[in-house]
């Protein structure tokens, strides 16, 4: 409560300073707050968009929960959240939700003699590992699906995110989707009650613990694993194929997702398709449908319009997955719901 008020105050302060600073220059500031996972991308987009459109983005990476709280209190121009809000919540707070980009999760392991993308795993096995039912790397089922590997008699040490995070939300969504047991015993949330293992703070904490503990397994965002050369694994997708985490596999998942879900809350875990990577997730933007300031709302939409049209390359460089073009166009159409005095603020003029 205290923190949220403080954040609101800070956001307000930043907005005021931003406004007063840009009053002279021909610039407009927009403020956003929320998910930390897309933060590097939003910052890069912000820099590039400032040069191209004159819109200056002030994005605070405070976490999805705080982002939802801030947009509900209308202390920022847009909120950002890894987990979608429910249709009910969106209606109650009069918010429009759309995805901005996508990311994927990978499993990382530390098993002596196992190199990156050699180990084969399935969602069911991962669920049982995180439930504490499979405890040794030389478990019969693991050995059977990995004929090419010599798996040691080593205890499995599951590592999870200790801080509440969208990453955990996506990871447990996947495990719950493939394992009814996991759904029943643990469920889905930004933090859950893990029956086994140890928790670490942030991607860097999970990666650090996995690196240090022999027999450890963890999950991180693919971008983080890629940039830090972590030992990732293959996963079996819904079609029954073992796939390695590559941009093609992520794009395949995005293409096979059902984007017609209400409020764009498409689930990209365990999607259909021969080549689909099974754990992909969109990250969402939340906008008030009844903004108080038409110009600021319009600038937010201009910003994302620019990002959708010109931001794909930056996104790919940072290991994010751009949205399919059809989805981007559907989102632009949905922006008509953002209205001031009954008039849509988009398209601009």
């Amino acid at each position, binding site marked *: 409560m205290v923190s949220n008020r403080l954040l609101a105050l800070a956001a307000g302060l930043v907005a005021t300073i931003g406004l007063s600073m840009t009053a002279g220059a021909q610039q407009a500031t927009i403020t956003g707050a929320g998910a930390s996972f897309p933060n590097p991308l939003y910052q890069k987009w912000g820099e590039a968009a400032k040069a191209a459109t004159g819109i200056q983005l002030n994005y605070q990476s405070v976490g999805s929960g705080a982002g939802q*709280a801030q947009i509900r209190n209308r202390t920022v121009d847009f909120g950002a959240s890894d987990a979608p809000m429910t249709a009910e919540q969106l209606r109650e707070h009069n918010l429009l939700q759309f995805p901005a980009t996508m990311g994927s999760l990978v499993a990382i392991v530390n098993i002596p003699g196992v190199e990156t993308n050699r180990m084969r795993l399935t969602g069911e096995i991962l669920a049982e590992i995180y439930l504490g039912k499979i405890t040794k790397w030389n478990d019969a089922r693991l050995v059977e699906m990995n004929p090419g590997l010599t798996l040691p008699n080593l205890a499995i040490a599951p590592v999870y995110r*200790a801080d*509440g995070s969208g990453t955990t939300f996506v990871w447990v969504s996947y495990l719950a989707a493939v394992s009814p047991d996991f759904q029943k015993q643990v*469920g889905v*949330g930004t*933090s859950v*009650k893990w029956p086994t293992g140890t*928790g670490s703070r942030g991607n860097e*904490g999970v990666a650090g613990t996995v690196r*240090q503990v022999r027999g450890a397994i963890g999950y991180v965002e693919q971008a983080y694993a890629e940039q830090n050369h972590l030992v990732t694994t293959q996963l079996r997708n819904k079609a029954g194929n073992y796939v390695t985490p590559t941009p093609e596999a992520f794009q395949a998942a995005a293409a096979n997702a059902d984007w017609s879900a209400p409020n764009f809350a498409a689930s990209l875990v365990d999607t259909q398709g021969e080549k689909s990577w099974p754990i992909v997730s969109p990250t969402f933007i939340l906008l008030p449908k009844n903004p108080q300031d038409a110009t600021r709302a319009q600038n937010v939409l201009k910003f994302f319009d620019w990002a959708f049209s010109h931001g794909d390359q930056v996104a790919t460089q940072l290991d994010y997955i751009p949205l399919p073009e059809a989805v981007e166009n559907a989102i632009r159409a949905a922006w008509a719901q953002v209205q001031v005095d009954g008039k849509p603020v988009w398209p601009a003029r």
Partner: protein
Amino acid sequence: MQQAATPTADAAPPSGLPLRRGQSSGALGDAIFAAACRGAGVFVLLLLGAIILELFLGGLQAFRAFGPGFVTSTEWDPVQEVFGAGVSIYGTLITAVLALVFAVPLAFGVAFYLTELAPAWLKRPVGTAVELLAAVPSIIYGMWGFFLIVPFMSQVVQPFVIDTLGELPLLGDLFAGPPFGTGIFTAALILAIMVLPFIAATMRDVFETVPPVYKESAYGLGCTQWEVVRNVVLPYTRVSVVGGIMLGLGRALGETMAVTFVIGNANRISASLFGPGNTIASLVALEFGESELGSLKLSALLGLGFILFVISFIVLAASRLLLRQRLKG
């Protein structure tokens, strides 16, 4: 007072005027100064009260929902929205107490060395080094713990202990489990280093209050150094030493950042000291960002904060009480 002053001023000859003016402005300045200081003092008190109240009111929703069972329940399930403080209270207390078990003998050694044994030229460097330990930000201890102590524990200490002590009946349970490196034991180790300077500095200060003539008499009777400590220094300073230890305990209870890095962050109580756990402070720090405004979880976290506040308050009040007598002199 004003009434008394006015007639005097009226009656005074004109020559007294400058004097009176000087007096009155001085009195006014003094009054403002006193009021400002009083305000500052009262402000701190109000601030403390407001924080306690805010935490309590924030936690009220959780206290209402779970009743007194909130304190003892070991369930922490954000998905089912069932919250209990048991695991984190246990973790907070056990890490703090274990930290004292490691830190107190070391602090005692440092303090006694500084007051009795160290040559004069070494007293200052060692004393300063100990005080500098207190100035290291806790995030540094956290990183140091995570990148140095944790690998050392998981690769050297724990495999060894698990293979030896872990095999024993009963005692073995304390050290069983996979060697994560993180856990209650590692957290206590880091905490011990963090509270060491507080305890050592207090001990040194109170040891120095022992009148030299007592110690000299004891040495004169042929006592060994240990006997002097045991029979003269400690009995004389006992209460203050306990106060210093409580001061360290207070610090250990509330430590957040360093503990979060190394404790393993699991909301379970495991029999093994090497097992992961959680403390109130680290749980609050970790979960706060993803707690929605007005949610039961946020309320539970604020309630946890209130409980921690109460525990720390009791410990620190006790330490003040015990230290007061000795340090006054």
